[in-house]
């Protein structure tokens, strides 16, 4: 009960700060919009020029991928706010309280994931313009998958943040973890007939399971699926549990 109150208030802080920061909400729509309208439309044309049509289908294919991209960046940056909290001292206030490290990690994860899920849902407003078919049912299925995907990325970010003392390592992480994760996630191109080394990287890329699942619930099986939906859900859940556990251990270790 007392741990729940702590989880709740850590979650609430992130959610409150998200809604308070209107410019950030609007600003973070810019990147997906650029990907969808400029890159997406451009690539759709090039597919028509270079081969076998299917231009409009590409936008449809890409759409869940861009939701995944939004979730990836939002939840990772949310987790990295721990480093800001450390640098600006707020983290100490949390760490000296009687709340367990496990609850701190879980509250932070739920907060970042909620924000990422909301941010991901906002992308859906582009779907009528791009004529992407969505239904109430598919949205209801999509929400938990978005949340699960966000939790995977959050747990990863939080676990990394447990050991990062300053923002300096952040740029490195973005370039060496975030970007490869994004490009090897199936967001922009189908993950079929890949060279061996790339196929291995896809297997260990948690985001690839999330985007595969999102594409399945939004578009059915009209595009190449990596795994059945239930496999995706199981793998995502398993990764969340393992990485969260490591994160808690790292936070429990004292200097």
């Amino acid at each position, binding site marked *: 009960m*007392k741990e729940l*109150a*702590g989880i*709740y*208030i850590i979650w609430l*802080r992130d959610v*409150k*700060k998200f809604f*308070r920061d209107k410019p950030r909400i609007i600003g973070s729509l810019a990147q997906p919009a650029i990907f969808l309208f400029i890159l997406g439309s451009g690539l759709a044309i090039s597919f028509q020029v270079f081969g076998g049509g299917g231009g409009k289908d590409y936008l449809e294919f890409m759409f869940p991928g861009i939701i995944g991209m939004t979730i990836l960046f939002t939840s990772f940056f949310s987790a990295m706010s721990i480093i800001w*909290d450390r640098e*600006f*001292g*707020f983290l*100490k*206030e*949390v*760490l*000296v*309280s*009687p*709340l*367990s490290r496990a609850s701190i990690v879980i509250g932070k994860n739920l907060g970042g994931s909620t924000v990422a899920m909301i941010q991901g849902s906002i992308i859906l407003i582009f779907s009528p313009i791009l004529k992407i078919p969505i239904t109430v049912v598919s949205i209801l299925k999509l929400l938990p998958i978005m949340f699960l995907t966000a939790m995977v990325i959050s747990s990863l970010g939080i676990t990394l943040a447990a050991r990062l003392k300053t923002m300096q390592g952040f740029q490195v992480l973005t370039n060496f973890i975030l970007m490869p994760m994004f490009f090897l996630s199936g967001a922009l191109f189908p993950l079929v007939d890949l060279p061996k080394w790339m196929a291995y990287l896809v297997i260990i890329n948690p985001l690839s399971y999330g985007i595969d699942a999102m594409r399945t619930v939004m578009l059915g099986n009209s595009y190449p699926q990596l795994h059945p939906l239930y496999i995706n859900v199981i793998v995502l859940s398993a990764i969340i549990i393992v990485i969260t556990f490591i994160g808690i251990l790292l936070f429990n270790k*004292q*200097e």
Partner: protein
Amino acid sequence: MSNNIIEVKNLVKKFNNITAVDNISFSVKEGEIFGFLGPNGAGKTTTINIICTLLSLNSGDVTLCGYNVLKDKNKIRNCIGLVFQDPSLDDRLTAMENLNFHSLLYNVPRKLIKKRCEEVLETVDLTNRKNDLVRTFSGGMRRRLEIARGLIHYPKILFLDEPTIGLDPQTRHKIWDYIIKLKKNQNITIFLTTHYIEESEICNRIAIIDRGKIIAFDTPEALKDMVGMDIIIISSKDNNKLKFYIEKKLNKKVEIHEDDNIKFEVKNSSNFIPDFIKNCPVKITSINARKSTLNDVFLNLTGREIREEYMNAKDNFKLKMRFRTRM
């Protein structure tokens, strides 16, 4: 059990090759204001962080309210309030939201939260700003809010790490008043650290700490009696001649300060000065007498002044950060 609420025995803490805390032992009595006085880098914050379960220790034995810092972390965290040296508020939240956050972390019963928050805001005079974002607060207001926050869960002990660092003298005095008022009204134990001499005067007992070691430990009065002398500072037309006179004729040990002042100690300055002026062979341009302070105690023990202590790069950076976020 004795009425010692904190007991520290032979505590050692090393960071790589620096010994930050070097085998110190002391105890804090229930209900007192206890002070750690020492220059930057003396090991004050490190000691507090160990007592508050935020840092591990290399060796030694630390108990608080009878709980061991290594074994009963959660019990200790439940009975302390800590105001950190560096700012630790979320400045994108309002004052009330910061307090509410703290209340839930510390498991204050839901029904009581609002009442407690209003109560502590009242104590530090921030009631009319409770719904403003902390970003809009001045440094002093933030500090008061941090002190208020440390009180919400009714801690047995309140730790204040450099409670007035970087604040203007007026705000500083106001915060001292709050601390004294707190101790009187709520009867909690207060453990503060400081490198301001004046600040340590509000303590019941102080430990003077330097380079990780406690070099003196007593009430402020007793410590000043240790020096026991009044200090006379003179400048004159011919300092060398005056020095010679004081040393040879009056048999006193004299220091010449870099700002051309002559400094020496006497038992009783009010009796000494009239005679001295009458008999002095050199023309005196100014004369100044004062009671000894804790700074003199420190000077006496270490040969250095607390004030002139170097600041290391990290502290300097922290101080700058503090000003940046506080202004």
